[in-house]
C-alpha cells in the first residue's frame, strides 16, 4: 500500500478533530530525589552504591562482584577484559559476567536510568549476567516528564531506560529476576 493512499484515506475518514491539551501534567516531586531514587531502585530489584567523586570505581565494582571473571566496558578509566567498541561481532560479548556502562539521567519515581548507546555493540547492556550503571548523583530527576525533557540520543540512534534487572512473572505470576537480559543491576551514584 502506498503511503499517499493511506494518508488520503485517513484524512477522508476523520470526522471530528480534537486539539492537544494546552497544559502539561505536573508530575510528582520529592523532597530528596536521591533518597527516592535509591528507594525505588531497591523496589525494582536494583542495588545502589553511593560513591564519592574521588572513590576508585574499579575497586568498588570488583568488591561488588568478587567472583566475576569477565568484565566488559568501554567507559574511560574502567578496567575491562572486553571492549564493546572493538569486538568484531556482538556475539563476542556473550559470556560477559559484568558489563559496565554509563547512564545519563536517573528517575526518582521509577528507578529508570537512561542509558544511551555510546558503544558500538549495545548488547553489552543486556547480554552481561550483571550490569553496572554509572550515573552522576546530580543527574537524578523527579519524574518522566523531567526525564524526557533532558535525555539526549547519541549518533548511534539508540537508548534505553533501564529500571532494575531483567525480570519475568510469566510462570504463575512468580517474580523471577534474570529472564533474558542482565540478572542483576547495580547503579553506582557518583558525587
Amino acid at each position, binding site marked *: 500500500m502506498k503511503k499517499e493512499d493511506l494518508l488520503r484515506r485517513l484524512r477522508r475518514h476523520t470526522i471530528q478533530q480534537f486539539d492537544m491539551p494546552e497544559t502539561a501534567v505536573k508530575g510528582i516531586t520529592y523532597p530528596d530525589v536521591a533518597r527516592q531514587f535509591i528507594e525505588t531502585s531497591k523496589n525494582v530489584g536494583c542495588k545502589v552504591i553511593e560513591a564519592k567523586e574521588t572513590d576508585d570505581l574499579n575497586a568498588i565494582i570488583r568488591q561488588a562482584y568478587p567472583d566475576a571473571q569477565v568484565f566488559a566496558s568501554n567507559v574511560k578509566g574502567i578496567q575491562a577484559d572486553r571492549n564493546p567498541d572493538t569486538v568484531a561481532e556482538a556475539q563476542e560479548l556473550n559470556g560477559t559476567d559484568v558489563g559496565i556502562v554509563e547512564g545519563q539521567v536517573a528517575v526518582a519515581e*521509577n528507578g529508570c536510568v537512561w542509558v544511551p548507546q555510546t558503544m558500538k555493540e549495545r548488547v553489552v547492556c543486556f547480554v552481561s549476567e550483571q550490569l553496572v550503571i554509572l550515573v552522576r548523583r546530580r543527574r537524578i530527576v523527579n519524574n518522566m516528564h523531567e526525564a524526557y525533557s533532558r535525555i539526549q540520543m547519541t549518533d548511534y540512534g539508540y537508548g534505553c531506560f533501564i*529500571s532494575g534487572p531483567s525480570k519475568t512473572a510469566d510462570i504463575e505470576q512468580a517474580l523471577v529476576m534474570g529472564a533474558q537480559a542482565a540478572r542483576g543491576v547495580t547503579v553506582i551514584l557518583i558525587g
Partner: protein
Amino acid sequence: MSTYHSKRAKEFLKNPEEKISRHDQTFWSVRQKRDAAAAQLPEWENLREQASRIKAHTVTHLADYLEQFTTNLEKNGVIVHFAKDAQEFNEIAYGILETHKVRKLVKSKSMLTEECGLNPYLMERGIDVVESDLGERILQLMHLKPAHIVMPAIHLTRDEVGEMFEEKGISKEIGNHDPTYLTYCARQNLRKDFMDADAGMTGCNFGVAATGDCVVCTNEGNADMSTSVPKLHIVAMGLEKVIPDYASLAVFHRLLSRSGTGQPATSFTSHFRRARPGAEMHVILVDNGRSDITANTAHWETLKCIRCGACMNTCPVYRRSGGYSYSYFIPGPIGVNLSMLKDPKKHSGNVSACSLCLSCDCVCPAKVTPGSQIYRWRQSLETYGTENKEKKVMAEGMKAVYENYPVYDALLRNSSVANYIPEAWADTSLNPWSIGHTMPRFARKPFHALFKQAMEELKNGK
C-alpha cells in the same frame, strides 16, 4: 440462549475450583498492584485525562503524525513500509527476510503479528520463528494462543510448563517445576537463539512522530536481545501507535506499566531510532482495518487504547471465564470491542461477556470506555442479525407487559401463584436463572395494590 462466550465460559467453569479461583485471584492481584501504583501519584487522574486527550488529538490527526513520523524514520535511514492488511504485512515481512536470506527470526512480543498470523505464514515458508518473551515462548512450544495481552501464559500452571520443558529437553532436572529454575532453563535455551538468529522483530508500543523513535517496553529485555545481535531489525507497528512527541511519551510511559502490571516502569524502555552499525532497520506500519475505525463515530475511541491489559485484569467476567472464552485473539473488554470492529458477524458472541459494571471504564488509562461501548455494540446486534433470538423474545414480552398497564396489573396481582411452582420443576434450558439461583418469591400483593389500598383506607377514614 447461549452465546459463544457463555458456552466457553461454562466449560472454563468446569475446571477444578482451585484453578478457577487461582485464575480470578491472579488477575485481581494485578489489579490491586495497579491500584497501589496509581495511589503513589497524586496526579494519577490528571494523567489519565491527559492521556485520553492526547490520544483523541493524535488519532484524529493520524495522517499528519504518520507523515511526520515516517519523514523522521527515513531521515534516520530506516526503511518504511505500509501494509493495507494482514496479508500485505506478512508478504512485506517475508520479503524483507527473504532478501536477507534469513533462516532464523527471533521475535519479541507483538500482538500485531498475532493479529496478522505472521508466525505460521513465515514458518510455512521455511523460516524458523522463535518467540523470545518467556510467556510467548511457552505458548509457542505448547501450540497455544495467548490468553491475555500482557501476561499471555499466566493461565498455565508451573507443572504444565515444567512438564513441557522436560519433554522438549529445555529443563534437565525432572520434576523441578520451580518458576525460577524453569525461567533459568528458558534463558539458557533462548540465549543460543539470540546469538545465531539472522533477524530480530519487535512490536512497538509508541512511535514518536517528532523524533522517529520506535519505543518498546519489556520486562525481560528480550526486545533488546532480539535486536542487538542480528543485522536486521523489523518493527511491526499498528498505525495508531504513533504519538506526537517526548512530552506525550512521558504521560503514556507513566501510565502503561502502572496500569498493566502495577510496576512504576517496565525494566526496559527501549528507543530505536536507527539501525545499529552495519545493520538495517525496517518499520512496517499496518492498517488492517484501523483507518476504518477512524470513521466509526460510535467506536473510534478504541484507537486510544495503549494495550496495557488493565481492563482484562479488572473485568469480573474475564477473570471468571479466561482468555479462551472469547472468539478473538484479544480477550476481555477491549477485545470484545476490537473483535466487533474486525468482524461483527463472526464475533457477536463475545458481546454477552459483560455485566456492564463499568469497572474497565474507570481503570482504563486512556479512557477508552470499553464497557460503555459494549452497551452500544449490543444495540447494534440486530443490524447484523446476530442478536440473541431468545433474549429478544424475552425483551419483547417484557415490553408488551410494561406498555400495557391492565396486563401488568393483572399479572402482578396474580404472580404470587408462581411461588408455588416446585423448584425441582425448573428447567434450566428454558430458565437459565435456575442454574445458579432459587426463584425469587413474588409478593402476595404488589406495591401499587398496597398503595392504592392504603390510600383508599385513608380516604375512608380508617
